[in-house]
Every structure is written in structure tokens, then in C-alpha cells.
């Protein structure tokens, strides 16, 4: 079983507190994504859980057992690294077999487990190759293979897809999600890509400057962000923020409206503006509108809506989907 609990975990490098103090509960079988901008401490947090860094304070409980002082190998976790971190001098077979060999399993059992893992990951034909003879996607699958043979309590993924090209990334994203459904093992996944977070996670942990901004399911974060940071970070294109008189009309310091919740019209609406840039994606069009007295607003409209640079348009926010924030940036509900 793979439940993980962090109690007041902190990490200090010199005088700099990368993670001031974090409490978090991860239940068995969950797919949890740590997301945040670079430098927010998400990878450090993962490394603390892995045991690759020592905590400065607090406790890490894995399966009810205090693992704070345990070395990485004895925490029952497997990790997939951003750079794959395959052993370049070993064949694919030896790479996948390495953790089993370290655990002292006998050769017949190792062979069987390696074959099984290779079958799951479509690597059977590549078992005798060296990592350098594989493509990026195949290397990543070997890294995953090496992680699954141990049957760990939980998998840790540190930005595993960021070295892959866009098309492969979408494929691997799907493969990892399918793997999770198949294995039903806890997975903790670190990424800076909110699309990965939204599509894969059961639970997203949004981190900023070493602090947890919000924890929730993807749709909870999308629909009910707790603060300006989460509201701006989750969703693509980003939520529009408006402050000043327009916000005061809604008894708020700042109001936020997502691009897809702005209704566009050519003849009537709440705010008027001029189309600056129109990005045509085919299915949708992203319009960057210079709204009079407000600033630039991004609107997402149907790809069929005919509009070009310089057109005058009206934008109306959906009042049900308007987010209000106080002067501290916290959501007003």
C-alpha cells in the first residue's frame, strides 16, 4: 500500500528556506501531481520524499512507517528521472534488472519479471540494446520499466516528459495514465506543465515559493481557485485579471474571468475593444483584445467566428463564472 504523509516538512539550503513547512496527505493509489513554476520547490519536495535530500525538519510517513531517516532504497519507492538516468553501459535488460539484482533476487525470478515488464512497455524487441541505441520515448519506457519491476509502494516522476517532443509527450502522457489504471499504485508526478497536471492527476498540489497554494482535483482548481496564483496558473490560456473600478462594481479588489467564459459579439456587450492579435487554432481562436479602459483581455471563441486584427468587438463575462479576489489575492466566495 502506498500512502504518504508529510508532517511539517521543511528544507533549508544555507539561509534560504526552499520549503518553509509543508503538510500533505497522499492516499493509496492516488495520482498526485506537484505543479508550479520553476524554482517553486516541487522537485525538491519530490527528492525529500525519495530520500535523495534530507529534510531539515518534519516527518515523512510512508505506509504508517516513519521514513524520515531511511535511505532511498529502503523507502519502497521507485523514481523516474527527467534525464531518464539509465545506466549507459548496461543493456536494456540489465537496466531493468538492476533493482532486482540489488535486492538479491535469483536469476530465474529476475528474468521473468524483466520479460513481464518489457511486455507491458513494448520493449521486448529492444532488451539486448544499449540505451544509446534507443529513441527518447523508448528510453523513457526503459526508465519506467526499471521503476515498475520492483513493485514499489509508490512511483515518483520528476518531469519525465520534458525531454520529449510534443507529439511523443502526448503519447507518453496517455501511457503513464494507462499504467496507473493498470497498476493502481500511488504515483507522484512533478511537472511545470499545467496541461499535464490537468490531464493526468487525481489530485493536484499547486506549489509556489515552497508553499502549497491549493490542493484539489483538476476541476476543483479550475472552477474554484483559492487565490490569484492558482487562478492564473491553472487554465490555458491564462485567466484574465481586472482590477480598479470594474472590480469594485463586483465588490472585489480583482476580478478574474477565463478566456472561454467571455462571450464575444460584434454589436453589443459589457466591454468594448479592438482585436490586437487573433491566433487561429482551427477549432478555437484566441483573441487578444485591447479593451477600452481595462487593458488586454484574452478571449477564446469558436474557430468559425470570423474576426481579424483591428476589428471592434464587444466582450461580456459570464456572471456565473466570474471569480472575485480580495486585496490579499484570496478568493471571495
Amino acid at each position: 500500500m502506498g500512502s504518504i504523509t508529510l508532517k511539517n516538512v521543511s528544507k533549508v539550503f544555507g539561509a534560504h528556506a526552499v520549503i518553509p513547512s509543508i503538510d500533505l496527505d497522499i492516499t493509496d493509489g492516488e495520482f498526485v501531481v506537484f505543479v508550479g513554476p520553476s524554482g517553486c520547490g516541487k522537485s525538491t519536495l519530490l527528492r525529500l520524499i525519495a530520500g535523495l535530500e534530507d529534510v531539515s525538519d518534519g516527518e515523512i510517513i510512508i505506509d504508517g512507517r516513519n521514513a524520515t531517516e531511511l535511505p532511498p532504497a529502503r523507502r519502497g519507492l521507485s523514481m523516474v528521472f527527467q534525464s531518464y538516468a539509465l545506466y549507459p553501459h548496461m543493456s536494456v535488460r540489465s537496466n531493468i534488472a538492476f533493482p532486482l539484482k540489488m535486492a538479491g533476487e535469483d536469476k530465474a525470478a529476475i528474468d521473468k519479471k524483466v520479460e513481464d515488464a518489457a511486455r507491458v512497455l513494448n520493449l521486448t524487441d529492444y532488451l539486448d540494446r544499449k540505451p544509446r541505441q534507443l529513441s527518447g520515448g523508448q528510453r523513457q519506457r526503459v526508465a519506467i520499466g526499471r521503476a515498475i519491476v520492483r513493485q514499489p509502494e509508490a512511483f515518483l516522476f520528476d518531469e519525465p516528459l520534458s525531454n520529449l517532443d510534443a507529439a511523443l509527450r502526448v503519447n507518453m502522457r496517455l501511457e503513464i495514465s494507462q499504467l496507473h489504471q493498470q497498476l493502481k499504485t500511488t504515483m507522484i508526478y512533478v511537472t511545470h506543465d499545467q496541461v499535464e497536471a490537468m490531464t493526468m492527476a487525481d489530485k493536484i498540489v499547486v506549489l509556489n515559493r515552497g508553499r502549497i497554494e491549493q490542493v484539489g482535483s483538476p476541476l476543483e482548481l479550475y472552477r474554484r481557485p483559492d487565490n490569484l496564483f492558482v487562478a492564473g496558473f491553472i487554465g490555458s490560456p491564462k485567466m484574465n485579471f481586472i482590477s480598479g473600478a470594474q472590480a469594485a462594481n463586483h465588490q472585489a479588489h480583482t476580478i478574474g474571468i477565463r478566456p472561454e467564459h467571455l462571450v464575444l459579439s460584434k454589436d453589443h456587450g459589457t466591454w468594448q475593444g479592438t482585436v490586437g492579435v487573433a491566433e487561429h487554432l482551427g477549432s478555437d481562436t484566441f483573441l487578444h483584445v485591447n479593451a477600452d479602459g481595462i487593458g488586454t483581455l484574452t478571449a477564446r471563441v469558436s474557430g468559425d467566428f470570423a474576426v481579424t486584427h483591428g476589428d471592434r468587438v464587444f466582450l461580456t463575462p459570464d456572471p456565473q463564472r466570474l471569480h472575485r479576489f480580495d486585496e490579499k489575492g484570496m478568493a471571495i466566495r
Partner: protein
Amino acid sequence: MARNVSTGRKLITTVVAWTIAILIFFPILWTFLTSFKTEAQAIASPPVFLFFDWTTENYSEVQSRSDYLKHFMNSVVVSFGSTLLGLLIAIPSAWAMAFAPTKRTKDVLMWMLSTKMMPPVGVLVPMYLMFRNWGLLDTRTGLVIVLTLINLPIIIWMLYTYFKEIPGEILEAARMDGASLAKEIIYVLTPMAIPGIASTLLLNIILAWNEAFWTLNLSAAKAAPLTAFIASYSSPEGLFYAKLSAASTMAIAPILILGWFSQKQLVRGLTFGAVK
């Protein structure tokens, strides 16, 4: 885009390169040629280059007068022994400095290197006395120890440079996979650093083989390596250039052959990490 190089320019570069190469190689060639001359031809003025009566009598005389094989074996034991012992100490040290550095790591590295800047003669007397008191004078063990110590800074520096090139994530992966520190070094770090370790090994064998100051001062008859073998043909018995040359040729031949066959490895090792 490749640069256009004119034929004239190519010719000049080739001539210059060959000239430098021959200049560097000439003393070795001259020693080799002299070893086949008679003593009279060896000191003839003007010197004779290729047209003399080739003779191998210097070699047979050198062999009959002093036991080449004994010195050769001493050289092998001392240079290989000191290199292997050095690697055994240096691999974990370089590992620690490359992958678990502290605030003082750079200082320690500089301090180790600084010991190479000191003239060895400065510590000759205390070293000699220590060796005498510990019964290490004129023993292979003593020479292995002293050569290990004097070359250790270079071995550690070279290995440190190679290890720095190995991504830390791979070692972390090994740790996650359950490898203990020793297993991490044996199964992951060492195989990955083989090119670096091999060139360190070769370079150090060559350095140890050629080391003359300590081997001459701390050995006499029993443990004397080839450096002492050459030295025995210089001043004490007058200058016998032809015999001295024969002894030198015999002494440098093994290491020259080793260097020749491993030059690819050596060059690769020495330029390792220069270009990513």
C-alpha cells in the same frame, strides 16, 4: 562551413608539424642509433648518423654485466603496484569530492596539487630517515608506497575531472534502485568511468616507470628499477655512451610500446570532457 585551405598552406603546416615531431623524437632516435655503435663511433666527431658498423655487442655486454630482467621486474612491480594502490585510494576519494562536495572540497584539491609544486629534494632527508627506520630502504614495498604518494594527487585530480562529467542523476537512480555505496561505485560509477580510469592508469604507469628521483635515492641493489639500471652506466665507470644508450633503449622500450598501443586511449582520456 569548412574552411578552404590552399595547398601551399597545407604543405607549410605539414613541414612545420614534421619538423617539430622529428625534433622531439630525435633524442630517442639518437639514443637508439648510438646503442648499436662501438664506443669509439659513439663519441666520433663529426658524429656518424646511419653509416657505421652496426653491432649488438653493447646489448649483450649490458645484459651480462647487470641483470636487465631483475630491474625490469622491479620497474613493473613498482609502477603497476603504485598505480593500482593509488587507484584504490583515489576512486573513493574522487567519488566523494565529485558527488558529495563540501565547502572545503576545492581547497583540499588545491592543497593536494600544491604538494606537487614542492621540490622533492626538500623532503628527501626526512623521507630517507623514515624509510631507514621502518626498514623500507631498497625494498619494492617502499618504492610502491613512495610512488603511490607522490602520484596520488594527479590520480585524484584526473579521476575527479572524469567523475564530474558523470550525471549525478544516474548515481541517484542507482541509490533509488537499492545499491549500497560500494555497489554504486562497483556497478555504476566505475564501468561508466572506464575510459577515464584507463587513461589515468596508463598515464600513471608511465609517470611511475620514468620516475627517477625517489627510485634512485631510496633503492640500491635489490629493489632498483630500470632508472637505476640506466644510471649505473653513467659517471662511475667513465662515460660509456654506447652502453648507456643500450641500457636506456632497453629501459624505455617497454613503456614506449605500451604507450604506442594505448595512444588512442591516452588521447581520448586526456581530452575527455573537453567537448560535451
